């Protein structure tokens, strides 16, 4: 498995290797419920994949575009609320609500992106404005009647596929895995597309990219909309899985933090970074809970420490760190071969 994708990184390489590694990773993960039947484990894996999906959204804008958003909860929450409200208040079919939720998140992304990129906000300023938008949405959602205000919105239990609810945890797990798989493919396609190259150019040097004729605002806006849609999809799934949403969950600061935590720890601007990061942080969090009892706050302390350590020691995330390590080993012991970057994920 580790030798499956022998591609060189860069524009000259072909994409089959990466597709193959996506297929392998997803296939391995898909087999888990056939072996493990414990609902606790499946719940843990669903939460992990959910974090990976929200993080993949952040990764498109932050990892490839270099625009560090601190308010991705704005999209997660909008996706969740649109899905829930359409079902509960307007009797819309859950699948249609799901699609509308993704679209709603994308629209919010377009509005926030349009306003802030047009004003030329970057760096700390962009981080602040996204944070503020998420806060405004949280406060609005906590007082307006349509969201259920402080009480939140409860989706009726209806365990049928047409209501996007499943009796078995395993089915839910496969659904979220499929969504993660789609997000991996999308990220891969972005990475290899002309749009992706523009996006990376904007990240590396916005002024230079503009001078070369890249429409910087449109490229950033496009990344924002795609990013928002993917993170919104995570919000939509959250509602169907937990059947409840309130303003503190939907637009909470923690959602925004987790969305940036997973790609940065896993490997910012890489296809597998968010998935890998989510697996690592969630496992460490659970491990900390096992060691020290289920006290509130402890797992998050571990997240914070890991975040600082990763930035300090492996600024390109764990995927980047492993790649560098493999390159180093490769140079040392196998001078002829260039190890495939995706090999670590098999």
């Amino acid at each position, binding site marked *: 498995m580790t030798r499956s994708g022998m591609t060189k990184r860069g524009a000259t390489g072909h994409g089959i290797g990466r597709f193959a590694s996506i297929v392998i990773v997803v296939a391995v993960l898909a087999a888990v419920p056939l072996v493990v039947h414990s609902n606790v484990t499946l719940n843990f894996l669903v939460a992990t994949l959910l974090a990976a999906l929200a993080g993949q959204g952040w990764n498109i804008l932050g990892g490839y575009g270099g625009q560090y958003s601190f308010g991705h909860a704005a999209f997660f929450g909008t996706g969740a609320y649109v899905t829930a409200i359409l079902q509960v208040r307007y009797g819309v079919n859950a699948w249609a609500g799901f699609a509308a939720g993704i679209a709603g998140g994308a629209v919010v992304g377009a509005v926030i992106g349009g306003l802030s990129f047009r*004003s*030329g906000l970057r*760096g*700390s*300023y962009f981080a*602040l404005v996204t944070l503020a938008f998420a806060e405004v949405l949280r406060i609005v959602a906590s007082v307006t009647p349509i969201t259920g205000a402080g009480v939140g919105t409860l989706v009726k239990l209806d365990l049928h596929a047409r209501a996007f609810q499943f009796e078995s945890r395993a089915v839910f797990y496969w659904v979220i895995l499929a969504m993660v798989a789609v997000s991996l493919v999308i990220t891969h396609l972005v990475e290899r597309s002309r749009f992706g190259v523009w996006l990376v150019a904007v990240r590396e040097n916005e002024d230079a990219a503009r001078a070369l004729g890249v429409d910087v605002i449109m490229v950033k806006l496009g990344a924002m909309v795609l990013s928002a849609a993917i993170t919104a999809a995570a919000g939509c799934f959250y509602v169907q899985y937990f059947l409840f949403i309130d303003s503190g969950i939907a637009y909470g600061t923690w959602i925004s933090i987790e969305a940036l935590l997973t790609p940065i720890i896993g490997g910012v601007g890489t296809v597998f970074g968010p998935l890998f990061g989510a697996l690592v942080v969630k496992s460490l969090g659970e491990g900390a809970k096992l060691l020290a009892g289920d006290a*509130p706050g402890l797992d998050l302390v571990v997240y914070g420490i890991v975040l*600082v350590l990763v930035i*300090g020691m492996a600024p390109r995330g764990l995927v980047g760190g492993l790649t560098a390590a493999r390159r180093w080993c490769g140079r040392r012991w196998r001078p002829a071969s260039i190890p495939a970057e995706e090999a670590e994920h098999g």
Partner: protein
Amino acid sequence: MFTPAILIAAIFNGLLTGAVYALVALGLTLVYGVLHIINFAHGALLSAALFAAFFAFHQFGLDPYLAAFLLAPAFFACGYAFQRFVIGPASHGDDRNMLLVTLGIAIVIENALLYAFHADTRTIDVPYAFQSIDLGFTFLAVPRLVGFGAVFVVALLLWLIMAWTDTGKAIRAVAKERLGAELAGIDVAHIYAVTFGLGTACVAIAACLLIPTYYVNPSVGNAFVLIAFTIVVLGGMGSVPGALIGGLVTGVVESLSGLFLGDSLGQIGIFLIFILVLLVRPNGLFGAKA
């Protein structure tokens, strides 16, 4: 419907609250002005300082106003160490990494407090907590008046440090031209750490001024720091007078919009101003240079 007396009382109370906001914002704007980063750990440090002031009173009976003289140097040392040994080395000189490292520190502090002290809200009982002065048309709480005065003393002190000491001159030099300062023999890593320490000391003093009339829990700092972000942006990032005026204005806006719109919508008023200023005048109302 609102008599002038109510309005004036709201404005006065807004000014008193705004002064403490200004002090929190002062620390933030100082760090931004020199290091050019948003310090996301500011709120968590405020929560930690509030806990420190709480326990100083609760365990040792130390009056919060006296505790300020102990906590300010202690938090200066903490801030210095964070920047010198954690934020600086871990971020490799990249602004985006600095943002993330301060965020990481914020997560660690906030949740360590949650783990150690749980989510309970605590208050202290000082004898002067409910004393007030009658101005004829309104009452002003004594502890908040003390806070108001103290903020201006701290601001004056900070200005004196910046204007007259060698360290202050070095800080201003690094803020203006990092590379030039380095070439002139200034130890930039040390100056960064001193600046971060000063910002953290501001938070410690703010905590001591707040605790007599306020409460403490592990996430209490976040509410303040979001407002402090607004103030810093309003006043122009890095501008000390901007932070003071911005703090007072924000206090009044919050107090008045709370009066007219109710508490939670009053907060929206602040954020909408924040977003508008960011979008329209990112250099702040008083900031002139790009």
